[in-house]
């Protein structure tokens, strides 16, 4: 049957059950949302309050790709510095990595067996 659950190592996965659960959860959320206080979206209530300042335009407020996850890349700046260093963009370096890895595989295949 096409709708049967997929057996995994530790249990099963059924998209049909998941979709039913999702629809029920969405319905509950919608009902709860509907019971809330209805706010007006126009006028003062609809605009962000920035200590009385008018605030930037939508164009200026749109966060650009370079600024998203700045904190993540800054926290891992040491790792990224190293990564940039090895991603030189020079084909000679690509070849070196390639040949180096081929040699490493060979050493591992031979060497680990000798140790074993």
């Amino acid at each position, binding site marked *: 049957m096409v709708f049967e659950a997929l057996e*995994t*190592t530790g249990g099963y996965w059924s*998209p049909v059950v998941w*979709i039913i659960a999702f629809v029920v959860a969405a319905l509950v959320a919608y009902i709860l949302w509907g019971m809330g206080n209805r706010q007006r979206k126009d006028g003062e209530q609809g605009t962000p309050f920035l200590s009385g300042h008018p605030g930037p335009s939508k164009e200026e407020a749109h966060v650009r790709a370079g600024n998203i996850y700045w904190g993540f890349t800054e926290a891992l700046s040491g790792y990224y510095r190293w990564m940039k260093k090895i991603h030189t963009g020079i*084909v000679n*370096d690509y070849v070196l990595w*390639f040949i180096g890895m081929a040699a490493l595989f060979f050493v591992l*295949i031979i060497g680990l067996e000798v140790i074993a």
Partner: protein
Amino acid sequence: MMEDLLTHAPALLLAIPLLGAFLTPLIDRVNKKARSAWVILILVVTQFIMMALAWDVFTQGAHLYTMGAGDPTSTIPAQAAVPVRIVLQVDGMSAFMGLISCTVSLAAAIYSLAFMDRESGKGRFFTLLLLMTVGMLGMEFTGDMFNLFVFLEVLSIASAGLIAFRVYKGDAIEGAFKYIVISTLGALMVLFSVGLFYGQYNLLNIAALANVLEYTFLDKLALGLLIAAFAMKCGAVPMHMWTPDAYTVAPASITAMLVAASQASLYALFRVCFTLYGVTLNLTTVGIIIIALGLLSMFVGVTMAIPQKDIKRLMSYHAISQTGYMLLGVGVGLYLLSKAEFDTYGLRAMEGGIFHIINHALYKGLLFLTAGAIFYKVGTRNLEKMGGLAHSMKYTAIFFIIGALAIAGIPPLNGFASKLLIYESAYQVSPILSIVAMLVSILTLASFVKVFHSAFMGPRLDISDNREVPKSMLAGMAILAVGIILFGLFPDWVVSHLVHPAAQALADQAGYIGSVGGV
């Protein structure tokens, strides 16, 4: 009629796109519309034959085809004791990969009809596209090592030509140059390995070689070279650096094809490990090597994707990261191949890895096509210069969301099902493997949230043409999006009818050897 078609299907699947490729430039000189119709017709016919062959392989068993033999199933000529002619051997794994290659090729060709309308030289473009299809199918169907090398070369040269297709852009030439240099070196390693086998055993046929392989010092040398060559071609870290350079600059439809091409190399890597060497090799050592490559690829791929500002470069690093999942899943299977646990969770891990191959071809192909659609509209790949595209490109935005959720493993899309199989099986070997895999999924989602926010959200862009991309581009994306949704909704059907036969065929070295009579 149908029986004859199925008997000759392995050869026809190479001959038809090959004939299509050679006739395309001629038809192009006569009529441009006829050329486009011809290319689509060839790929539709190829897809139809591939589906029929795959169904037959999954239900009736492997197909053998000996080129030049009166009886195509007779692999050994009367005057010889071993298979000496070119043999195509299509088992469950080959058929599975063939389906991926044909589907992606068809979607890419349909998408290209409108996507490439501003370019000249489309006769050459479609010729090379068809040759890429031949290269992929040849690698997946061949039953001998030398032809594996030949088709690898066909694929690499056609790919390099297409990466450099926009010759007026310097970075396209640079990307293609890097690709062809590193690919040629990889192909030389494969050729050298073939020479080592031929020198020792006087054989090129994979089944015949697997039957007599003694795992000598030279065989180990060949194994190291083959793992390096195919791992590099599939973009495994740290041999991945050509991938973002080439994927980024190729036309978007070709980038989707390059994903399928990388998977053909991944197939070759698995075929070498499981079928050519099989239980003769040290499964623990090689299994750990493949798992380590998978972990490195997953982590480095996704962390390098996060800071990218070029949409296609970002997606290229994700392609590397997703290849890591496949290496991890199938690597766990290889590690456990001769152990009792193989039947309990080793095979499940392989199924996860193999299921991820087809899922990745679908959603990564789709994501690259959406990136191409954005480039078609905005004229830049720079995310900093995009925004608000969901206002004018509603369908592209929906296709992007489907692809992004699938690659991040969000249920109920297809990426979740294959990742779940990998997480649970890899956990039995070491919880660390699953933890890294899950962490990578979270970072993948974060990365695509960034792309969606930068490209589709925010105020409307000031572009002259505010319409959606042409219908043929949408059709190419729709083919892949429908596949993602169907594979997500019916994972059990896909696993039991497509993935399980493929995983079993890959793990069954004795069956592969035995199917070539007289070996």
